[in-house]
């Protein structure tokens, strides 16, 4: 690893020395990255990549390390293709984060945890993680050496893709365990209208109006929020269909816009497979649907939910 400790180097030099940290000085503070950013929009109004770049240029080390911008970026890269100076901002932030970790700072994010008594050391989590957070280590467990998964808390962004992927159910993220989701699937049937559940990721509905709209649906449209559609476990959909729910709509980000890089790729594969399995069991009929909503698709969620509901009504009539 490169030596970042040299006193002669400025903070900016240190960031530049890390691959991906180059081109800092190109930033002319136009603000495009901030206005594109979902984190700034949804989580942290103080989040501001261009200001972090500025802190690096002005040698404001501690402030940069403490800034939420350093820790919250999930490298969705919405900003990168829009940056007029072609700065790969998430990589620069990653470089700052690397320096922060080396300086002893820790990520404030809620991360996944591994139940070591369940982990079989298969390594599927290692393969699915977009952030290289889990890795396999040799560990002593109950007096026996075993190969177990360990998650680097400073790398984990909490998307839950590994939670859904773990065949042993050994990885958990607080709040979105299968039990938590099952508890939410209790929509009461209202005068014979079909019941549907909409799994919606935390990031695909950019406009506040769309989020509010989703909440305003009658009770037979159940909304379950998940961090990423990558967290979708086919079991969840089966659970829903099994508990007398007629249809499942999964809403994720548009291709290339997934907040956790490849969550929607994983989920579209999973839902494709699930639908094939349902078709083979003659349970298909388009009752599980996956839609990808882009940042510019304001108001699309309404038409998607309406279309799904319409489909379910006609399906029910045919039943």
């Amino acid at each position, binding site marked *: 690893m490169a030596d970042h400790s040299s006193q002669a180097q400025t903070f900016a030099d240190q960031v530049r020395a890390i691959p991906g940290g180059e081109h800092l000085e190109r930033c002319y503070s136009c603000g495009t*990255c*901030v206005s*594109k950013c979902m984190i700034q929009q949804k989580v942290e109004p103080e989040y501001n990549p261009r200001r972090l770049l500025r802190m690096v240029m002005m040698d404001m080390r501690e402030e940069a390390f403490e800034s939420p911008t350093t820790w919250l970026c999930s490298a969705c890269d919405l900003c990168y293709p829009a940056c*007029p100076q072609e700065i790969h901002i998430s990589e620069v932030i990653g470089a700052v984060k690397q320096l922060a970790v080396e300086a002893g700072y820790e990520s404030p994010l809620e991360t996944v945890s591994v139940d070591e008594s369940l982990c079989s050391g298969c390594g599927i989590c290692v393969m699915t993680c977009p952030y290289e957070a889990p890795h396999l280590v040799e560990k002593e467990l109950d007096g026996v050496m075993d190969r177990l998964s360990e998650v680097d808390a400073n790398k984990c962004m909490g998307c839950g893709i590994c939670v859904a992927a773990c065949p042993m159910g050994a990885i958990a993220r607080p709040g979105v365990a299968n039990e938590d989701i099952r508890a939410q699937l209790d929509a009461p049937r209202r005068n014979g209208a079909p019941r549907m559940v909409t799994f919606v990721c935390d990031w695909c509905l950019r406009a506040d109006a769309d989020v509010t709209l989703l909440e305003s649906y009658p009770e037979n449209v159940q909304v379950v929020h998940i961090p990423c559609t990558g967290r979708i476990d086919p079991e969840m959909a089966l659970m829903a269909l099994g508990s007398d729910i007629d249809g499942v709509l999964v809403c994720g980000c548009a291709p290339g816009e997934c907040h956790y890089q490849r969550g929607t790729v994983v989920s579209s594969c999973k839902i494709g497979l699930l639908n094939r399995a349902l078709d083979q069991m003659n349970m298909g009929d388009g009752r599980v649907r996956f839609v990808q909503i882009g940042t*510019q698709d304001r108001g699309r969620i309404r038409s998607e939910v309406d279309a799904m509901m319409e489909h379910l009504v006609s399906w029910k009539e045919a039943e």
Partner: protein
Amino acid sequence: MVDASRHPKVDVRTFTEVERVEGFVGNFKVQLREKSRFVYEDRCNGCGECAEVCPIEVPNYFELSLAPRRAIDVPMSQSVPLVYNVDMDSCIECYKCVEACGELDAIDFSMEDEFVWEDVGSIVVATGFDHFDPTAMSEYGYGRFPNVITAIEMERLNNSAGPTAGELIRPSDGEIPERLAIINCVGSRDKRFNPSCSNFCCMYSIKNAVLLKQTYPDIDLSVYYMDIRTPSKGYEEFYNRAREMGIRFIQGRPGLITEDPDTGNLYVESEDRDLGRVTEREYDMVMLNQAAVPQPDVDSISSVLNIAQSPGGWFMEYHPKLRPLDTPTDGVFLAGACQGPKDIPSSVAQGSGAAARAGRVVHADEWEIEPVIAAVWEDRCISAQGKKCGLCERACPYGAIEYEEGKAPNIVTAKCHGCGGCVAECPQNAMTQMHFTDAQILAQMQTLLADKPEEKILAFRCHWCSYGGADLAGVSHFEYSSNERGLRVMCSARMDADFIYEAFRLGAGAVLFSGCHEQDCHYITGQRVGAHRAKRLLRRFERMGMTPGRFRVEWISAAEGEKYARVINEMQEVLDSIPREELLEEIEELRPDMARRARRMREVPQIEEASDFAEEIAEAHRAREPEAV
């Protein structure tokens, strides 16, 4: 335009393209393609009855498809001359227009393009600029959201002769917008599209905002900008006036525009840097102030006129500070935005200047050129002996060499700029350059390398760039090795392979081959000729087993004094790293090969004289040496 067309000494040719240009300054022959309008210019009186009966309506390109035109129509009401034309791509040839024209008999469907040759003394290029198409910037939704329009579309909407008779309405529902956003720098200052600033758009956005505010005093107008650039007289005052009128200026480049599918309203998300937070504001309409880009056909124009392009595609001036109106081709001048984006006052100023420069050519009986032109020794030319060659013609960036197989080339003196590329390319040494003859350069080399040549770094510098770089290194007091010996030629294209071989034959420790950066070349493509040769030499010396670094190729601009000093010092380090005996051994080993390769140079006329002369000087120098020590 109308005045110009009526002037007895001005001949306006519209709907005409320049196909070919031959000749040289003061004596150009220009071939024009006068495109067929299918309407006789001298018979049409512009009454418009043909258009009235025409059943075909197609989008009007002049109105940016905001309005229709008939298949037979005028492009715009102020067209000069006011003659109708037929758009053959959409015409169904029903001949209703012919009937309507009646007695005038101005319409003729059998008309064809005409080619004419004209004699002209000088040429002014004023082809202007084009607009960046913002469809490529998906974040702004142009082309998808009907109420996102470009500045030029706004120009038509806000024009009393435009498709809405000057009423600003939004395309989705025809309502007059109450809230309007103008976004600047769409496609400019953007490395993805055009990295440079488009110069006039800040003022253009302010102008549009002020005009709209005057027409619609209640309109809520915001201008999104990164920086407002108001660098000319009265501009800042105009900007202040706009702010006083209540136009809102928001510093921040919007990252996203979304559309409400029900109302067609647009939400612009941008960081407001003064507030320090991201704002999402709702507008009825958004205008994108797009970048100025070169015309799509600049490549064909530059090849027809033999003029170069700067990076980005704008036509290149002869010198950015000292000759901004001229091109490398004498007698061809630039006016307006074809040379780079500029506003109306600058374009008018440049146009007047270019006209004056062009007038100088037209009124001159004689034309003075640089004396460093090329010449041919016919008796040495293999083409004159019936063999195939033509290398000189290919090396010439100006088309100054007329080559015909079986004959010695003819050099059009007025076109030759004296880069020397042809001279160096000629494998027979059948060409020479006045004041930079092989003999003269050889004499310099012999003198410079007369004493302890193995310690010397012989630096070939081009007149315009690397010589300037060396000069700057000197005046800036950047220290570099005193073993450097500079030799000036006009262009790296003149740096003959023979010179390099001969320098090593004479025992030079190291040789530098330096010139302009490719885009800076004073002789359009001279550097490319030199660079190609230098690359070949590098490979050859590597195969010959020469220590890497003894022959070095560097492109150094006149502003890079520091680089020149660094390169020379690095070359000195290379020389220092080779033990003296080994270096001498290597020089001796390579000498026969070098001599063999440079042998043709010894056959060049006057070379012996030059050698003798150099020897004399070296002798005198050596005689003085003890005193100097």
